[in-house]
């Protein structure tokens, strides 16, 4: 398929899953505030930090505002400047969809277009102010419907594979960041069991895993089992391992020969994660583990963007380029938005 179109499909998937994830995270955090007796700042601040938006948010609203739930939600939902706000994600997703409208089904296009138009309506703003829960619920339902339409109405060919890979890689990153955020809060809070329990439940809710976790563990809730569930559970569609595996499967079907660096690195990352599962993780190792996953995923994504362009030479065909030594070893940044090539 056309390289630019593949790139847009990939990013459409990322933006949609990001919008869905932030709506759920916002709901889970609002609910956490009622569940635990801890400073409100400690509930909302991590949400801004894991999104990578601390600096612009503080520049705009001041450090005090990090504890102000309404301001944080306002910013993370509506901000036009923010690269990761809900409104930005939906707008960007719709723009990608418009650019590849010929690849999407009519149902799929109508749904993303209607979500975009709905977000811009005055009545929606009123709903946001009067019934926050319902507002986020609407966003979640619409984005979930879109994800369902992808699987049920698009041809299961390359465009859908790129799209779904975007969904899965974005989700792996989101799960990693949400886990990291709860882990930080946990470290800082007192070791009170009730608080801990509330935090872990909030984590599971934020990645839609509460019911799934209970099914697996029949009510036996420990920090270790929860962390392992979110990291490794092969049947949980938001665990990091599941997402990487799904992305890796899609990529393996697009490029059947292992000539592409992004494909090889994704397989390696998955293998590495599986080896960590075998060895077992200590709670204290979570942060470096998650950092590695996020950074490596970001590096794979940017490599993928390059490789999507395909070899541009026509004759004679070039041999595949060997990966440079130690590539990506020092790459702390994560790419949050699509880079426009033109």
């Amino acid at each position: 398929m056309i390289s630019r179109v593949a790139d847009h499909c990939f990013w459409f998937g990322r933006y949609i899953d990001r919008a869905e994830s932030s709506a759920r995270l916002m709901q889970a955090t609002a609910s956490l505030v009622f569940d635990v007796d801890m400073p409100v700042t400690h509930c909302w601040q991590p949400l801004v930090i894991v999104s990578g938006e601390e600096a612009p948010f503080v520049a705009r609203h001041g450090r005090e505002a990090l504890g102000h739930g309404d301001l944080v939600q306002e910013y993370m939902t509506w901000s036009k400047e923010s690269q990761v706000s809900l409104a930005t994600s939906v707008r960007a997703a719709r723009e990608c969809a418009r650019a590849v409208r010929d690849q999407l089904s009519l149902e799929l296009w109508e749904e993303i277009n209607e979500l975009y138009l709905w977000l811009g309506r005055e009545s929606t703003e009123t709903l946001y102010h009067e019934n926050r829960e319902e507002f986020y619920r609407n966003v979640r339902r619409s984005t979930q419907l879109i994800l369902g339409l992808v699987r049920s109405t698009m041809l299961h060919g390359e465009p859908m594979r790129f799209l779904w890979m975007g969904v899965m890689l974005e989700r792996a990153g989101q799960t990693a960041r949400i886990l990291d955020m709860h882990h930080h809060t946990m470290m800082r809070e007192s070791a009170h069991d009730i608080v801990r329990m509330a935090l872990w439940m909030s984590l599971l809710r934020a990645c839609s895993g509460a019911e799934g976790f209970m099914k697996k563990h029949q009510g036996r809730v420990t920090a270790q089992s929860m962390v392992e569930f979110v990291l490794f559970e092969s049947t949980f569609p938001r665990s990091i391992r599941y997402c990487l595996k799904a992305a890796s499967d899609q990529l393996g079907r697009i490029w059947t020969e292992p000539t592409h660096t992004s494909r090889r690195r994704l397989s390696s990352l998955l293998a590495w994660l599986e080896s960590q599962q075998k060895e077992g993780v200590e709670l204290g190792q979570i942060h470096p583990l998650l950092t590695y996953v996020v950074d490596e995923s970001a590096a794979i994504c940017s490599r993928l963007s390059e490789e999507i362009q395909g070899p541009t030479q026509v004759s004679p065909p070039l041999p595949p380029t060997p990966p440079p030594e130690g590539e990506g070893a020092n790459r702390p940044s994560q790419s949050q938005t699509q880079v426009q090539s033109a």
Partner: protein
Amino acid sequence: MWSVLQAVPNTRNGVFTSYQPLAGTYDEMVHADGSPRPHTKRIHAVLHSTPPREFAKYQSLAELSLFNQGVTFSVYSDQQGTEKIFPICLVPRVIGATEWAKLERGLVQRIRALNLFLDDMYGEQKILKAGIMPADLVLGAKQYEKTLKGMKAPGGVRIPIAGIDLIRSPDGTFCVLEDNVRTPSGVSYVVENRLVTKRIFRENIEMSSVRSVEQYPLELAHTLRAVAPQGETDVNMVVLTPGIYNSAYFEHSFLARHMGIDLVEPSDLFVDDDTVFVRTTHGPRRVHVIYRRIDDAYLDPQFFRPDSMLGVPGLMRAYAKGRVTLANAPGNGCADDKAVYPFVPDMIRYYLGEEPSLAQVDTYVCARDDDRKYVVENLDKLVVKAVDEAGGYGMLMGPQSTAAQREEFKRRVLAEPRKYIAQHRIELSSCPTWDPARERLSPRRVDLRPFILTSPEGSWVLPGGLTRVALVEGSYVVNSSQGGGSKDTWVEREAVT
């Protein structure tokens, strides 16, 4: 008084209540006495019994559905990238079968002549040598590309896709107002409008009595394949768009989607060894036919505009070598130039040895001394148009103009006579159109843009075409950028008597 009328909805009368055709104007649906024409009887009867409230409901449903489907165009002047729907009026414009057959013949004849004219202009220029047209008028046009002289169109046809703008004069005759042989747009609205009216009228009208329009994309794909460079099998075709911010982007994507071919931007293409390729995730793939919706100037920076970053470097070299077909051919602008338009009937006589079967509007060419003198002295009676402007811009509507505007145009015409033509204002025909303020139908002026597809095998005309309507009372300007809307155009399948 007014509020009393508002409070008591008039349900006994339909939307035609006190409909009055404009004096001195041909009405597309009714005779001067208000009775329907033979081919509009059925739709007239349906509308006649439709209460205004109900009609208003249908109208807003139709608009909402276009919005949700993203059937929109972008507004150029708006930096925010605002999208608008092209407003639709649900009252269709109906054309009788016999009349359409005649129109069709005239359109095909005209396109044949224009194709031959372009071959001639970029070839031997026999028509100029024969003294039928003033040479400097054609060769001096901004749109005549000297550098293309001697190049043949790889697929053999320079105008695979044409849109001819027609208007109907008060005596009921269709006249050509303008030719569009570069990148005519609007056909997607023809297909989308039909989908909307079909849904709304499905219970009242047998749509089988109306000729279908939905096959256009298939006919277009067939035409594009037929104009591929000779000797090529397994032809790869693409639609080339400037991108999502272009005002006609919806249409570009619509056509690609319905033909099932790839929609590409210039940066997706590159040229190697005078052959065009598209970048794919599995490496380069050869391209044989490009339905380009990009102006000549932005096709190839190496050829047209060294300062431009846009376009596909080397594309014109590939074209000159006959390795890729561009539809439509570059350089076509010299055939639909408004200053060349007055000579089209002569072209038809010269190339085909036939009399033109379509009428056209008498035109004063300001480059000619006598014409210019008349124009300058009669600005208040004339419509003056700049030859290289489109979309209803750069125009003086004499009868509605101020003295200052006329003075300004006089100055412009005298400064650059080649740039201007003038015509008497035609009382464009009108069609009953939903008037939201009065909540009933009022006569509004319309034009018609039929689309003609041409391959070496011959031409095919889309039955109907785009009817544009000036939604503003008293207006003659139908352009979407200036308050125009559109209507579904129905061509009757068989003549009724």
